């Protein structure tokens, strides 16, 4: 091939071609392989130089200002309080603990947000394709509104415009022993008493029983063709069994009621308004994107599939469940993963309203107090990287599992 090209340029007549050497070597910068090697070596040396400069510069600067590097600061006492913590944390805890508290708070908001956004997004995505004019238009309106307003603004809206305008603790909105005010949502904490173990046992027994029933129902359908309402039975068992046991064992559950003492409530469980605002904003915002992803996935399944199922006499619901959704999921999962990653990373906007997530607590207060910028920032970045990679890994695994069934 190469000899052909080089020959035809210089020697148009056929007789000269025979005398020419069979293969002429191209100049080395015209050889694609050598050329790409040259570019890679160039790029690598530039990158090496840049990194060397950055690291050398940093080390020199740190030395000049007398800042010690290393992770010793993690064991020092933090000395500041955190508004919300899933583990025991006091001002006497270490900076290392502030990292854990922030990390757990970040994971909490990410998990809560992903669950809510997924459910809401799937409902809205299917709703936008509904034949029902009102449902479809409502869904379209929702998506267009929340997708097109900056997330930070939405967080501010829920926090400052909705939750902070709620009454003071003394004028709390009260219902069923719970209170809503500008300090958050306060509800009675359940305190298990002797005999509550039965209820817990009943709950897990119901889960096992539901699983067995699902298996039995599948077997029976294969043998006799009869269908069984598995979903309804499962819900009934998981709620019903613990409830019956709870009533028969004499309701062994005390409640720690919140009470107004001075200017604030004591007792009960408090969900701080920062968490509620951030959760609402992240879920509602991301749900709009997930809805579009789901809609795209459903539209990607050709109309012929629905027609074939319809012609076979299948109902709309069964067509959606057995034909459309399984095929749509393959298109939906990769962009859905991106949305999960976005939500997790966007949760760092928490710092704008003071929700104590990793960025606010660790890359904020701890960094300010210790001045260990390089260590703190790299630990924080490593956390987001690890969380994102874990999410990607899980979603890729799930995607591979459902893709496999194609052939």
């Amino acid at each position, binding site marked *: 091939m190469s000899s052909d090209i080089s020959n035809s340029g210089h020697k148009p007549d056929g007789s000269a071609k025979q005398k020419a050497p069979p293969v002429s070597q191209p100049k080395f910068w015209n050889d694609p392989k050598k050329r790409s090697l040259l570019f890679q070596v160039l790029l690598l040396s530039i990158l090496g130089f840049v990194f060397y400069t950055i690291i050398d510069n940093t080390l020199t600067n740190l030395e000049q200002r007398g800042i010690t590097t290393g992770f010793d600061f993690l064991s020092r006492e933090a000395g500041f309080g955190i508004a919300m913590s899933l583990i025991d944390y006091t001002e006497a805890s270490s900076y290392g603990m502030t990292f854990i508290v922030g990390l757990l708070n970040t994971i909490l908001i990410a998990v809560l947000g992903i669950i809510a956004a997924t459910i809401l997004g799937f409902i809205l995505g299917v709703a936008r394709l509904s034949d029902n004019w009102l449902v479809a238009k409502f869904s379209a309106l929702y998506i267009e509104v929340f997708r097109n307003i900056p997330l930070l603004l939405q967080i501010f809206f829920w926090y400052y415009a909705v939750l902070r305008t709620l009454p003071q603790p003394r004028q709390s909105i009260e219902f069923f022993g719970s209170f809503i005010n500008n300090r958050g949502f306060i509800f009675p904490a359940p305190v298990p008493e002797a005999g509550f173990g039965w209820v817990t046992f009943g709950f897990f027994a119901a889960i096992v029983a539901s699983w067995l029933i699902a298996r039995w129902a599948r077997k029976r*359908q*294969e*043998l*006799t*063709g*009869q*269908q069984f309402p598995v979903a309804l039975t499962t819900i009934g068992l998981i709620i019903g069994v613990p409830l019956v046991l709870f009533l028969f064992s004499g309701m062994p559950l005390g409640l720690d009621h919140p009470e107004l003492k001075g200017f604030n409530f004591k007792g009960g469980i408090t969900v701080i308004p920062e968490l509620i605002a951030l959760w609402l904003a992240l879920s509602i915002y991301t749900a709009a994107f997930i809805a579009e992803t789901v809609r795209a996935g459903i539209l990607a399944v*050709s109309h*012929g*599939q629905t*027609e*074939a*199922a*319809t*012609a*076979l*006499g*299948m*109902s709309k619901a*069964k067509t959606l469940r*057995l*034909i459309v959704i*399984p*095929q749509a999921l393959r298109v939906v999962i990769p962009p859905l993963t991106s949305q999960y990653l976005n939500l997790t990373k966007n949760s760092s906007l928490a710092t704008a309203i003071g929700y104590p997530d990793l960025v606010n607590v660790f890359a904020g207060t701890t960094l300010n107090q210790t001045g260990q910028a390089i260590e703190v920032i790299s630990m924080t970045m490593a956390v987001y990287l690890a969380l994102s990679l874990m999410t990607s890994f899980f979603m890729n695994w799930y995607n591979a599992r459902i893709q496999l*069934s*194609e*052939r």
Partner: protein
Amino acid sequence: MSHSQATDKMMVELRDLNKWYGEFHVLKNINLEVKQGEKIVICGPSGSGKSTMIRCINHLEEHQKGDIIVNGIPLNEDIKNIEAIRKEVGMVFQHFNLFPHLTVLENCVLAPIWVKKMPRKQAEAEAMELLERVKIPDQALKYPGQLSGGQQQRVAIARSLCMNPDVMLFDEPTSALDPEMIKEVLDVMIELATEGMTMLCVTHEMGFAKTVADRVIFMDGGQIVEENEPHEFFNNPQHERTQLFLSQILQH
């Protein structure tokens, strides 16, 4: 013709059928009666409404005026009637429309299990019997994407037959196939015809029409222009448009 297996029982009746797509009048006063066991071939230029007409029969398309009666069940707004009719009517599409995420066998048993509530064992046994009739039992565990076009269309036929329909609709079943695969599909359809199935086929396979059709219907501009038994239809077409159409498709 002499080999007709038609009985006196009326299977499909279209009375003054009219359909519009917005302003466009696609079907104009269609009247058609198909008896049990009859085989009808419908041909005509593209856009003449032949596919639309047979798609109305199982309500994939909605008609605006006129009556459709399938095996005594009137097709109206009642969802129960629509479901009942769809159980009696099987359909084969131009582009096969097999479910790509299910194996050949799963494609076949899906509707019997979920619509007719048949035990899986029984559904699978019946599906295997039908796959044998269309001569691809060895492909049962493969996915549609692994089969040739001809094989896929034969699976599609078997899938419809699994619901044990009384009428089969074929919407250009060989138009998307490579020439060497057309015969294997037509062979299956001819076998089905000789077994006495009521069939309405939209097709331009004139050899098939001559072999099995009791009647050939020529449609143009949303109307039935000519209707005759195949011998007369091909040798002595009455209308100018039919003559023109036949001269165009038969000149090769």
